[in-house]
């Protein structure tokens, strides 16, 4: 495996700083090195005060969301050399309270998301013909959304409107409308039909571009709007 030195420009901020700054590190990488691995190497070998957060290392948990060269990604599956730039800029997610360096407070995200009643599972569309075990009506799977917050960081409306519900929560509401699973749908529809709900989306669709998990939050929001319009016109069961 050939190795190469890459420069990392890393956003740094500690509580009490008047402003953030960037630190530069040089890391030796190979064809398989990911941004997360490079950051861990920096923390281990060069600067133990670098604060990063991760868990699964394989794009399932959503913990390592950050901005690499200006774009929201999961650092654990972002290959350094494939970025193609001699310097890699690493910054935390936008639109979230900054705790330290590359770690943001996901509390507000979860607060909003939980008001969408946390749809976590759904009927699996991948196994329609498979035999189910006795007593099981059909196969289920986990929802694709891993609550990583990349969509919320990328959204231009979240950037200016702190009360906008945001793509993650709105997409979650659509999933509840698709499969209520006992949740009351009308109050949720009222919640998203509000001034800072799904009508504040301006179809930038950047959320769907950055989503690492095939959630297509933009598409979900449009489907939600279509449903709301149908109900407003009396074309759908209300």
């Amino acid at each position: 495996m050939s190795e190469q030195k890459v420069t990392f420009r890393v956003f740094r901020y500690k509580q009490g700083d008047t402003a953030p700054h960037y630190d530069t590190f040089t890391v030796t990488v190979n064809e398989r090195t990911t941004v997360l691995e490079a950051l861990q190497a920096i923390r281990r070998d060069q600067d133990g005060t670098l604060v990063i957060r991760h868990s699964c290392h394989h794009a399932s948990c959503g913990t390592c969301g950050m901005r690499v060269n200006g774009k929201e990604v999961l650092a654990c599956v972002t290959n350094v050399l494939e970025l193609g730039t001699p310097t890699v800029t690493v910054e935390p997610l936008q639109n979230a309270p900054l705790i330290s360096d590359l770690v943001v407070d996901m509390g507000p995200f979860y607060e909003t998301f939980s008001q969408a009643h946390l749809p976590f599972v759904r009927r699996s569309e991948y196994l329609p013909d498979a035999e189910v075990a006795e007593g099981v009506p059909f196969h289920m799977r986990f929802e694709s959304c891993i609550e990583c917050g990349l969509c919320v960081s990328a959204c231009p409306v979240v950037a200016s409107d702190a009360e906008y519900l945001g793509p993650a929560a709105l997409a979650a509401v659509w999933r509840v409308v698709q499969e209520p699973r006992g949740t009351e749908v009308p109050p949720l529809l009222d919640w998203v039909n509000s001034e800072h709900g799904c009508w504040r989306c301006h179809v930038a669709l950047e959320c769907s571009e950055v989503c690492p998990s095939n959630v297509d939050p933009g598409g979900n929001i449009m489907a939600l709007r279509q449903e709301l319009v149908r109900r407003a016109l009396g074309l759908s069961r209300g």
Partner: protein
Amino acid sequence: MLQETRVLHPVRRRGWKGWFAVRKRHLGYVAFALNRLTGLGLVLYLIIHLVVLSLLARGPETWDAFIELAKSPAFLLLDVILLAGILFHGLNGLRVILVGLGIGVHRHKELFWGLMLLAAILLIFGAWGFLVV
């Protein structure tokens, strides 16, 4: 505890500047930024246009003098820019309506380019109409 710590943690939000922060963003974001820019530009134009029309109330001499001015090359160039803004906002607006209702969501980029092709054709015809007459 969490409530207290959140107060000390600044939220990095770009505000309205985020609407135009298109670096590294994809087509939909750029289209949004341009729609917003052209929309605000057209509102400004509307205000100017309505104010200019008040010259009509001042009678033929005042109005006709303005009309002579409006035939100058500088004005005509501005008119072409205006037409470009109108065509972009109107045709991209059509896309926003369709996609916003869940139609063509997953082909929104093709829809964009198709409508922009139409806009370019109309702009060429329209500008030729301004400049040749």
